[in-house]
């Protein structure tokens, strides 16, 4: 036991990521004291939660960010001689965004939403009084959350639950809250009797939480802590249900690392892979392989070891994408984007 002054947390060891992975992004823990002075306290806290992966799922991060930005806007006053439309984004929003991005690289849904928010700010009529403008923005954010997150989740949960039939064996990977909701919905609301195989990533083991939550609702669960015997475990499954962190414009799915391996094995056995994805997670970008966009796990990576958080599953391994705007073939994901643009 060391005595004397409490040792200062050692500064992050300098990571030497192997060169072939050096282009990938990684979350960093930035001490609050080093953050820009303009960063709002709510955002400061949120950044820390993101950096430590306390808030992890794309959709959760998005919602938390939008709610934090509401507070930022709420506490904003336009300095004299400026207009909100021209001042808010560069001087107030951008420092928040930069800080959040520094804490953990933005997920695609956050990028989409922030682009939307900036557009809303720029559209504010300079003649509108500041309080009205702020109310208009906050109301807009609320509607956005309502439509793109809450309602979307509800619709997708119901649609996914409808896919589950009696005596099905659904296989899933890790824990995704929307997959969990869909399974529980199918059991409790639709009254289906089916069982679930949970495969897990042994490095974060969130699948154990899912297994417990499902058994609590009376669903029979088989749990396998890694991808060992994958081919064997898949033989029993009737379909695979996963959620996407993001969908690329070419129909590829960005999801927790390991999802692609499962989809490949499922394809070989002719088992359908169903993807749940809110349209806000669809990006117009394109990934050709898993190293185009990815994130390095800061916890488990050092000069000697590396862990990627995501992988990219090409569309040929996927069967169906369920979004709030409809269920489509993965190759039709761009159509969903177009539909969105038209409706706006």
């Amino acid at each position, binding site marked *: 036991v060391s005595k004397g002054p409490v040792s200062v947390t050692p500064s992050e060891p300098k990571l030497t990521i*192997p060169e*072939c992975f050096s282009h990938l992004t990684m979350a960093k823990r930035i001490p609050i004291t080093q953050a820009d002075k303009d960063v709002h306290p709510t955002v400061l806290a949120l950044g820390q939660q993101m950096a430590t992966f306390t808030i992890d799922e794309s959709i959760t991060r998005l919602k938390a960010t939008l709610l934090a930005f509401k507070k930022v806007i709420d506490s904003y006053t336009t300095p004299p001689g400026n207009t909100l439309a021209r001042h808010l984004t560069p001087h107030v929003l951008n420092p928040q965004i930069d800080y959040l991005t520094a804490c953990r690289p933005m997920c695609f849904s956050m990028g989409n939403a922030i682009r939307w928010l900036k557009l809303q700010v720029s559209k504010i009529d300079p003649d509108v009084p500041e309080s009205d403008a702020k109310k208009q923005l906050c109301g807009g954010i609320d509607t956005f959350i309502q439509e793109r997150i809450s309602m979307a989740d509800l619709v997708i949960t119901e649609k996914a639950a409808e896919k589950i039939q009696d005596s099905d064996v659904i296989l899933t990977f890790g824990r995704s809250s929307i997959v969990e909701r869909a399974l529980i919905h199918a059991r409790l609301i639709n009254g289906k009797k089916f069982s679930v195989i949970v495969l*897990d*990533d*042994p*490095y974060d*083991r969130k699948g*154990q939480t899912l*297994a*417990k939550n499902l*058994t*609590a609702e009376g669903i*029979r*669960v*088989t*749990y*396998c*802590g*890694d*991808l*060992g*015997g*994958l*081919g*064997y*475990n898949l033989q029993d499954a009737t379909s695979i249900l996963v959620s996407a962190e993001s969908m690329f414009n070419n129909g590829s799915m960005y999801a927790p*690392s*390991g*999802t*692609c*391996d*499962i989809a*490949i*094995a499922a394809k*070989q056995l002719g088992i359908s892979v169903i993807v749940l994805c809110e349209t806000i997670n669809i990006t117009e970008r394109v990934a050709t*392989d*898993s*190293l185009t966009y*990815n994130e390095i*796990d800061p916890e*488990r*990576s050092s000069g*000697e*070891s*590396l*862990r*990627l958080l*995501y*992988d*990219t*599953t090409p569309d040929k391994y996927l069967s169906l994408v369920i979004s709030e705007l409809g269920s489509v073939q993965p190759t039709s994901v761009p159509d969903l984007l177009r539909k969105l643009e038209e409706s706006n």
Partner: protein
Amino acid sequence: MGPPKGGYAPDLDKFLDTLKSRPVDASVDFLISLLKRRQIQGSESCAIATARVLLQVVAKDKWIDVDQLIGRIQLVGRKLVAAQPHELVIGNIVKRVLGLIRDEASEDRNDIANDSPPGGTTTLPPSIETVPVEKSIRPPSLAAFGSFARSQSMFTLLSDPDFIPSPSSTSQLGSGSSTPQRYPQSTNVQALKSEVIDGIEEIVDEIRQVDEQIQNYADIYIHPGDYIMVHQPSRTVQRFLTRAASKRKFTVLIVVDPSASHISDDPYASFRKALTSGGSTVVNIMNVGLMAYMSRVDKVILGARAITSTGGVVVDSGAAAIARAAREQGRTVIVLGGVYKVSPDSRSHQEAFVEWGSPSKYVNFADGRMVGQVKVRNVVAEFVSSELVNTYVTNLGAHSKDHLHGIIADHYNDEDVNFDLFGKTQR
């Protein structure tokens, strides 16, 4: 993977130490319990233990003719296989020893018939595997052996037309020769005994030399600048890569055992040091899904627990996902394993090769909700089908899937190939 503490838990070395002082039956029973408790595990250890215990059977048991000895070895073999049915090498060694006895016995007969001097040149190739394969002489010698051995196996096939695999019969009249007895009463049991014992010793030497011989082929398959992915590398794989790293620089991605990742010291520290000292790069990969890396990987090298006659490979759990990903991305998959791991076993059901382990690997027994309600599975070994493998490198060199039959023909007697060691012990 091994026992956590040094302790008093018996292992291979302790077992080998006790062999001489124990009666044969006690040694067999001891080995059976060690295999059942997985205190001897890993294909090399199992193979050596099996060979050594069979040597004791040959040396210490009272047998008066060849048939009796063969029956005895089959009986012991069945018990050992039943103790650890997933470790195919146990059956391999039993069948190798059976073949060895048959070869030595028929050699005896030839000696009497031809009246040739004892110890003269033999027509059968009982010990091809012991010919030290040096890198320099490999290609010609291998080709020569291949064709030679194949003609031999064809010959025995033809001369043995009404051969029916029968698990219980050990003294069937299969040979087309006019000899009334399968193997003539050897006038000199003692001589046969010492020949067989020497043969078993050679098998043990062969097993021990595998790593050294396989590494000679490393230069051929690993090129400068390669990105090589390995899964929980065995000593065979480590030495293979270390040899290559002494001459060239490349990058090795080691997929580590997730359950060992919380341990602070790197399980592959010395391996890493050996590679990095030559300028190569080593990265431990902390993922179970490896498709993410595959666009960067050039080759995947897997250590085999066993290789079946159809080219399927029994591997550590998790390696099959890598092989699958490699195949999807069009990457090369190379399997390393000694010839003693090539098994005449031809079971085609993949499930037969899945070995289950303790569910406590990832789920804590204190976690009541998991233990009580969830069915927890943990796979220890799984199967990679031959379509996913490009090349097999053994101590005899590189082989294609189609050449594995030749290896089996060279190393096993046809009568033993189909002998069902997995059948329930019937006597």
